[in-house]
C-alpha cells in the first residue's frame, strides 16, 4: 500500500517533465543566447524517437515543438489520462481494463500512421491528433496499474492485491 501513491506521483511528475520539455524546446530556441544549448539538447534528445519534421509539428514562437503533432498529442494525452486516472480508478486498487480497449485505441492510430491512411482519407493534423490522443488517453489505464503493482512486487512488500482485467473503464 505504501508505494502506490508514490509510484503514481513519480510517473505523473515524469510525464509532466517530459511534456514540459516538448514545449520548452521552442521557447528556449526563441530566447537564444544562454538558452540555445538547452534547446539543442532537448531537440537532440527527441531526435531518435521522432522525425521532428517542421511541417508536421506544432510551432511556438516560430520554432517547432521537440516532437511532431502525433507524438506530442500522444504524450499530452498520456498526461491527461494520468491526471484523470484517480477519478476513474482507486490508486490503491490497481485494476486493468479489458485488453480490447488497448486494441481499439491502437487500431485507428495504426491506420492513420501507416500508408493505409493516405489511401483511405487525407491524413491531417486533426486525424493525427484524434487518433494519437485516443491512444495516449487509454494507455495510462494499462501502464499505471501494472507499474504500481510492479513497484510493490520489486520493493518486496507482500502482495495484497493482484491486477485483474475488467470489462469497462471504470470501477463501477
Amino acid at each position, binding site marked *: 500500500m505504501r508505494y502506490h501513491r508514490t509510484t503514481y506521483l513519480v510517473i505523473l511528475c515524469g510525464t509532466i517533465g517530459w511534456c514540459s520539455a516538448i514545449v520548452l524546446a521552442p521557447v528556449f530556441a526563441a530566447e537564444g543566447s544562454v538558452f540555445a544549448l538547452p534547446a539543442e539538447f532537448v531537440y537532440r534528445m527527441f531526435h531518435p524517437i*521522432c522525425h521532428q519534421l517542421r511541417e508536421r509539428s506544432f510551432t511556438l514562437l516560430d520554432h517547432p515543438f521537440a516532437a511532431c503533432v502525433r507524438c506530442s498529442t500522444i504524450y499530452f494525452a498520456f498526461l491527461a489520462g494520468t491526471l484523470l486516472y484517480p477519478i476513474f480508478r482507486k490508486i490503491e486498487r490497481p485494476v486493468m481494463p479489458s485488453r480490447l480497449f*488497448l486494441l481499439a485505441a491502437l487500431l485507428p492510430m495504426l491506420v492513420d500512421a501507416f500508408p493505409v491512411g493516405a489511401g483511405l482519407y487525407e491524413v491531417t493534423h486533426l486525424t493525427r491528433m484524434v487518433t494519437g490522443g485516443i491512444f495516449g488517453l487509454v494507455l495510462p489505464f494499462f501502464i499505471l496499474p501494472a507499474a504500481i503493482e510492479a513497484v510493490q512486487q520489486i520493493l518486496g512488500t507482500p502482495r495484497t492485491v493482484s491486477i485483474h482485467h475488467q470489462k469497462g473503464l471504470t470501477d463501477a
Partner: protein
Amino acid sequence: MPNKPSILMPALYGGIIMAVISAVPGLNLLNCLCCAGVMFGGLMAVFFYKKDLTAQTPLESSDGVKLGALAGLFGAIIGSILTAGLMAVTGNVGGQMVKSILESSGALDQMPPEAVEQMETGLRETSLSFFTVIMSLIIDPLFGLLGGLIGYAVFKSKPGAVVPQPPVQPPTQP
C-alpha cells in the same frame, strides 16, 4: 514458490528485435512513432518469457518491468553497434531515404531553408555521436520498460483461465 525461469534470454531476444528495428534503414522509421519499435521489443521480451512459464509461476508485472528495461539495455547496446557498422559500410542510407521520400512527395520544396539545411547536416553525419549512444542507453530502457508493461497487460493470463497442468504421476508401490 517454484523458481522462475531466467529473464536473460527473453530480454536478449527482445533486445535483438529492438536493435534490428532501430538499425535497419526504413524499418527504423517505426521508432518515429513514439519509439514503437523499442516498445515492441519490450513487448516481445514478455512474449518469449511467457512461453517459459508454467501454471506455478504466473507472469507478474514486475517481470514486465525487468524484461522491458533489460531488453531496452540490450537493444541500445546491440543497436548502437549495428547502426555504427551499417553507417560505416553504407553511409547514412536512412537519412537519404527520408530525403528522397520528402522530395518525391514535394514536401521538401515547402520546407523552410533552415530545416533543409539542418537535414543536410544530419545527412553528412556518417558515424554515431557519443550523445546519440548515451541517449539510446537512457531512452531505450525507458521505452522498453513501457513496452514490457504493455506486454504484461496483453499477455497476462485472464483471471480464472484454465492453465494446462503437467500430468500427475501415480504413486508407485514399494
